């Protein structure tokens, strides 16, 4: 099993969610995060006041999938989240040791 972490632009959340739902992924965890990559923060000056936008607001999505689905999920996310402009985000894939459903105690792929 793998965990897929995707950092995407906030306004793309609905699109990605729908695209994942369409391919059969029903559950995910979302957090509001801030960050920057090569996009970096920038400084705006308006009417003499400096506005420094250091960390850009992004959305982080965490999804657990069976290892066989990883490539498909990555592709789906990219398709839905891409704008072609800088700041589109990144996707990370991590290994998962165990998954447990609290209510029933089920483990493994069944519990995803």
């Amino acid at each position: 099993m793998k965990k897929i972490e995707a950092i995407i632009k906030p306004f793309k959340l609905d699109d990605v969610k729908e695209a994942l739902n369409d391919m059969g992924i029903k559950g995910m965890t979302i957090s509001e995060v801030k960050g920057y990559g090569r996009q970096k923060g920038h400084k705006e000056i308006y009417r003499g006041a400096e506005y420094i936008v250091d960390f850009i607001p992004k959305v982080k999505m965490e999804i657990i999938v069976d290892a066989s689905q990883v490539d498909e999920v990555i592709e789906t996310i990219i398709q839905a989240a891409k704008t072609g402009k800088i700041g589109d985000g990144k996707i990370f894939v991590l290994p998962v040791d165990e998954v447990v459903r609290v209510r029933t105690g089920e483990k493994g792929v069944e519990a995803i």
Partner: protein
Amino acid sequence: MAQTALEPKNYSGLQARRQALDAYWQQGVGGNALLRKHSDFIDHHLAESFKKSAPAAEGFALVALGGYGRQELYPFSDIDLMILYDPAHKDELNSLVETILYPLWDTGLEVGHAVRTPDECMAFAAEDFFFRVAMLDARLLVGSATLFGKLTEMYKKAYIEGRRQEFLDDMLKQRTKRESQYGRHTYLLEPHIKEGCGGFRDIQSMVWTAHVVFGLKDLESLNEAGLLSQEELNRFEQAQDYLIRIRNRLHYVSGRKNDQLFFEHQKELAQAFGFTNKEELLGVEHFMREVYTHMQTISVTTDLFFEHVEEVLKGEESSKKGKVLEPDIEVKHGRIHLVNSEHLKEKPKLFMRLFYQSAKTGKPLHFRTRKAITAKLHHIDDKQRHSRRNAKLFLEILLSAKPFSVLEDMLDTGFLTSYIPELAKVESLAQHDVYHVFTVDRHLVQTINELEKLREEEVNIYTVISSPHILFLAGLLHDVGKGHGHGHAERGADLARQVGVRLNLKTDELDTLDFLVRNHLFLSHTALRRDLEDEEFLMRCATRIHSPGLLAMLYLLTIADARATGPTVWNDWKAALLLELYLKIVLLLDRKDISEQEQTRSAELGARWIREKVYELLPEPDDIDFDLYSDDYLLSFPPEVIAEHITQAKKLKKQEVLFSHKPNKESWSILVMTKDRPGLLTRIFGVLALHNLNVLAAKIFTWADGTVVDTIEVSSAISESYDGQDWTAMGNELHLAIQQRLGLEFRLSRKLAPLRNKPQGVQQRLAAKVKIDNRASELYSVIEVFSEDRIGILYDITKTLSDFGISIYRARISSKADQIVDVFYVLDHDGKKIEDPAFTNELQQGLLYAVKNV
């Protein structure tokens, strides 16, 4: 008290207690009566136990404390019991305690038990505030009255006589502590009906204080002593009873001692109290509104009471004379006083003047003045609501240094909803979700608080605003449309406008207010859901908002609204997105060419204004259907010109084509009006080209009934004078061409041949461009043509479009020096946007060819 069929003695043993209570409940015994029954039941049982153990008469007393002492036992309340004993009878203590307490423990009841001598009681009272206060409710159940009397005497001497100020200070200290723990407002999402503001502790504090300070035992005596008016007493008792009922049911529903109206329980309780879902309001929202109103009653009444007590104890009442601020109003000891409350009847303008003075001096209103205002609200009539003087003062209050506290006072006294009845609909209106912490009315006033803070925090943005009073007014009214189902922003805008008219705002101020309320959700929705890199979209935002002042107001309103909603609504993350959107739009606004007329009037504001102006100018305006004219059309001409168009259009019933012309400073204006038909524009441009006219600018519109209005700015390509131009011939040819009886094509080729056959090798200095955009407009495809200007170019472009079966609905022709930028809003011959990529390409090629045409 009516006797019910089930009396305590019908049930033996404590085990039957639960059944007894349930039985009463089924019989419909509720509220205070149920509490009393429960208490009586326990009394009866304890008396029996006491008798059984038969101790020495003077040595022991069973005393009830706290809630039990007040005979208020809730279904799952603790039983606060104390066994008072004379130390001389210590040996009998054990057996008594066992007989009394063990059975209680066995049935699993929560028994707070203490076994003390009178001296031990006094010692403990010295250390523990809560016990000290619980002693106020001490009640002898059974046993030695002498022993009990001894204790109460000692207590009175130590803590009541001559200790009034200390007691009051303790009460107030506790109150502050509770406020910081449970919240300052009655309007929190999950009110704690015991410890929260406006809850039972508030009631108890008031009763205890009245007892200690004035020797008054209950609420009725407070009324007799003049501390509570009859009206206040009635409302207070009603509120108290309501809360008791809720607390009873809450205990049953939770199955344990629970004093907080958790979210999960609210729906169930609402149902139990008979509230059903209506179209505009959920049952639970209606129910919670009742709860909040009652808690607010309790909170306000106790606030006023404590202020009164403080004053009495400080002995300030009669001392100094107040400083006169104006006739009938003075300030004394840092409080604004109404000299004589009867004056509110004769001079109702005093209502607003009081609040105005409070805002101006920064001093709060005296509690008696606040009570007077509440009591005399019925003297506020429509005359007061429409009064210009009141309006002026109200707006000045909004702009004062600290408007929030004054507006809170206005809300608490009921003045705000009397003066602005539109707010009455959202009074105490709860919004049933985990998102909103405050009721709507409280939220609106809280928004003012946030705007006050933003005024200090965002100085740079605030200085851009030319009419801050409108911003604050929008803050106060932005959710006034709630409580009617969906679409509260639009509804609120109409209501706000209504209020604005009464406040005597100018037209542009009304429009700004309307705009702010109507669009108060726009920025937050956009920031989270739209791509902030999308230039097209940002341009549209800039056009919609169109002024840096409006944008600044909308931005601050958005932040204030979010902060005043609840703790989860606003955070750094959202702030960053919103700031980004703000900066992007504001920089666009600064860079946009502001010389265009269209910038200064927004699609929503200006069109409405123009409609009104045109209405005024027309002789028979009611015959006119204003829906025919699009916003875009209305924004392109001054009202006089539109009125002229509409009047002229009547002639079209008799004539096929209307043609008029007049000279301007640098060009000539031509107006052509006729019924729409395919290829119309081509023919008009063709005729113009035949007469050697260069088209400098053109505005092409079609009314919804098919009437075409084309205004074209022209100049002579051959430097002909205005009078030298053969206008009559032009008019004739237009008629013929439009009716398809003129051979435009061959005439034009003949005429333009020398111009068209330029020597080879002369390239266009400017590369021609054709852009086809489907996203800029919702209804139409937008075709933009960039090219060098020449005679007949418009004819060629529009002819090409016509050949492709494209219909032109709107066009904007403009030229700068020798370049043209022509924008056409079109649809294909099926009436759809041009989306087929192959066709788009074909069209582009065709147009490029037509434009070059060398």
